[in-house]
């Protein structure tokens, strides 16, 4: 996980996304503990309240839960839930800008779809 201080995205959102990515990647398995607010504050040189906001959003959205006096843990089923959330956001985050740029450059839908398939073949 890495923070980008040049990126103007609020730091707490970067913390939240970084932790989400780590859960998706399996770095923090279900029912294991994620870093504490203090650890995040130390590691990234950020205000503990900012780190706390990032962590608490994961709790509020139901991907993590608090064990009192111990810390924050990844909920069972969190990976699947996160995948669903990201799939829903996929259209807005990736497709819309892609289509916008394609239109600006007069790239036809057929071409766009063909290119995506070609890129996928090249990756495999």
């Amino acid at each position, binding site marked *: 996980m890495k923070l980008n*201080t040049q990126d*103007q*995205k*609020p*730091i*707490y959102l970067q913390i939240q996304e970084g932790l989400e990515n780590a859960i998706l990647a399996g770095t923090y398995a279900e029912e294991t503990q994620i870093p504490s607010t*203090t650890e995040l*504050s*130390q590691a*990234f*040189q*950020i*205000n*503990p*309240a*900012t780190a706390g*906001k990032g962590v608490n959003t994961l709790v509020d959205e139901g991907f993590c839960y608090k064990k009192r006096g111990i810390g924050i843990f990844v909920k069972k089923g969190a990976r699947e839930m996160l995948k669903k959330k990201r799939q829903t956001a996929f259209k807005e985050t990736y497709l819309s800008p892609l289509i*916008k740029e394609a*239109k600006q450059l007069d790239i036809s839908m057929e071409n766009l779809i063909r290119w995506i398939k070609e890129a996928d073949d090249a990756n495999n």
Partner: protein
Amino acid sequence: MQTIKVCDVSKNYGDVLALDKVNLELQAGKIYGLLGRNGAGKSTLLKIIADRIRPTSGQILYDGKTILDDTTSRQLYFSEPDKTFPELLKVKELCYYTSQFYPRFNFDEVQKILKDFGINEKKRLNQLSTGNYAIVRSIVALHTRAEFIFLDEPTLGHDAVNRELFYNEVLRIYREEQNTIVLSTHLIDEISNLLEEVIFIDRGQIFLEDNLENIIISHFYLTGPSEQVEQIERLYSVIEKKENFGFISLLVHRSSLIPDLSDNIKTSRAGLQDIFVAYSKKRDK
């Protein structure tokens, strides 16, 4: 101490109005950034809060009381860039005297930290370079572990490595003490990650005061072809408008919901420094 309230404080230096009816409430357990250009009134405000100078009018309330007594004055520490300590004092002696007044100051710990910064404790204050003097006074200030610590330009003269070490130390003390630390500086981007609350001051007036995240998420850029941007401009509170080559870029404050934007208008986020500069320029007009 739970709160320090600045009530209608003004300060005149002769004909110059350094502070103009400033109202502010500082709460326990937060890191504040007091941000403004040189000469904005940052130091004057801090000196008045720390009871070093008197306001021309208005007052400061420390938990509702107008006077700092022997106990409450130890709950507050103010560190300023002016060389106010006796210049022949040795670093070690400054630490010793500070520990006598602030009992939570850990003399041995501070000696070790200053050594890590490469400072010889036997040196006299007037033998230190500008950068090393700044390190000594800011580290000593943090380690008073007072409930309210005011650091005026704490990194003036620090090199990049020492600034990072210092910022780490600010966060460490804050995590240990959960006290209030007010950092006054013009280096906005550099400290923005440390902050929870932001106070923007310009020409003696506080013109914006809010939680850092609130400020970041409520300001953004709208950029697009001039005609299209001009059509939606009136829907926003515009802080800055830049026109170049048929394109307009607006820095706006989101006061209401964003209407559907045409495909040609792009939104992007602004950093704290961009926001500050835009407000300052607007005030200059």
